[in-house]
């Protein structure tokens, strides 16, 4: 078996919010999480609201670093699929695509090389040279989505709501995700929907109150999860 791309050992995370001078609230969002993300797998993280699944995704995206335990990365490019990452409405679609792909881990050279591909996938045509503020919200999310999908990340992190743009682009983006998922791309998908996880993932992890309840075969985990929330 090959080495995990991301490995978490006893990871814990606590939100501390300042409520005043020298006063703070604590909220333990994750407790001793052990998890290996393996190359090529599609892992579904499932849980209800406030279960800690989004915090876990943020730890994987390195937005937060764990307070406790250890996390080690063997993957170079880990991208959180987000729409309109770092978009500046006054810049053109092309400029924003360059900026966005660099924020997702591309070098300038790589970004410039991949941009024509991104623009083509986004179906923006000549609008690519117009400022993003002139775009409809559908066009904007199409561009954001295209950047994230055309970047070849080692690990792609996806937070539920996959639907973007109009119906035909929605179908196209879902196909693209399924394609990514079934290819050798490593994907971590966070969702509260057992159906979605069951459809797309080959391994599932159920998280509740910051702790892993169950992990393993998707069918088994999603069935137990669905029973628990009936």
């Amino acid at each position, binding site marked *: 078996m090959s080495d995990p791309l991301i490995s978490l050992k006893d990871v814990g995370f606590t939100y501390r919010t300042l409520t005043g001078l020298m006063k703070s609230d604590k909220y333990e969002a994750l407790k001793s999480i052990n998890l290996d993300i393996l190359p090529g797998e599609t892992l579904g993280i499932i849980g209800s609201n406030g279960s800690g699944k989004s915090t876990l995704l943020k730890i994987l995206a390195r*937005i*937060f670093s764990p307070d406790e335990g250890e996390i080690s990365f063997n993957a170079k490019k880990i991208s959180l699929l987000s729409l309109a*990452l770092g978009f*500046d409405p006054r810049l053109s679609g092309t400029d924003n695509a360059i900026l966005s792909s*660099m924020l997702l881990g591309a070098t*300038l050279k790589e970004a410039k090389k991949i941009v024509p591909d991104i623009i083509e996938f986004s179906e923006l045509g000549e609008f690519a040279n117009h400022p993003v503020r002139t775009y409809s919200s559908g066009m904007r999310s199409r561009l954001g989505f295209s950047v994230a999908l055309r970047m070849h990340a080692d690990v792609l992190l996806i937070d539920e709501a996959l639907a973007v743009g109009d119906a035909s682009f929605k179908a196209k983006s879902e196909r693209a995700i399924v394609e990514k998922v079934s290819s050798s791309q490593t994907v971590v998908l966070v969702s509260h929907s057992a159906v979605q996880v069951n459809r797309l993932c080959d391994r599932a992890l159920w998280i509740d109150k910051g702790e892993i309840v169950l992990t393993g075969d998707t069918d088994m985990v999603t069935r137990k999860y669905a029973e628990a929330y009936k």
Partner: protein
Amino acid sequence: MKSIVNPDMRRKTVMFWQLVIIKVKFNLRSEAAQSYLSYAWWLLEPLMQMGVYLIVFDILLHRGTEDFVAFLLCGIIPWLWFSKSVNQSGNSITRGKGLISQTYLPKPFFPLVVIGQALIKQAFVFVLLFVFLFIYDYFPTIGWFWLIPIVITQLLLIIAVSFVVAFIVPFARDIQYLIDAGLKMVMFGSGIFYSYKSVFLPQHREYFLMNPIANLIVNYRRVLMEDVPPLTGHLVVISLVSIFVILLMTRVMKRHNNTLTLLAIE
């Protein structure tokens, strides 16, 4: 301590600086797209600010000996560079909320972009200064090469102070107001409008020069107006202290990365 630079580390460093540069470039482009006169404002804005001071001090108050205008400009131009960079760095991390909530970026990125934008604009302002000096009969000499270490020292000082304020402001945004007030105080204490030699007794001048801004302004005037070398020892001390603060603050921001992220997202 690991002394081996692995390729992954190098890639990260290259990417970080590439991203700073491209963000500076795009921000300048975006800023220019906001107004009808776009890039012309890089010259118009400082011209207007310089104009205000000139009208007040030279025409209304008749402070002027012949060289007062040149004297004033040599002080006000470096000052505006410093104050703008520091002032805008204050809330640079909180303004970076959108990026911070979606991707990992070392926090020094945010003040560095602010500083980079100000630096590019400042280059044009310095050219403007040279033109004014030329008009007022100060011709370039070989000694003007001393400007290079002075400008580098000032840049290091700007980065150091900006890192400190960028780190502190997210904890209490009230501090941004204190920065505004603090900068005004420093402005009047830095000998922009007066010569320290005519205001302070010889035995007190040493203390005045401990203010790094005042010190830099004195050095700009020595090189541009008096044609004498700068106080190099002072420049070295300011640079070294600044470098120390920059390294320290980089570590502090790394250590408190989660806290800064949470404060910015809230």
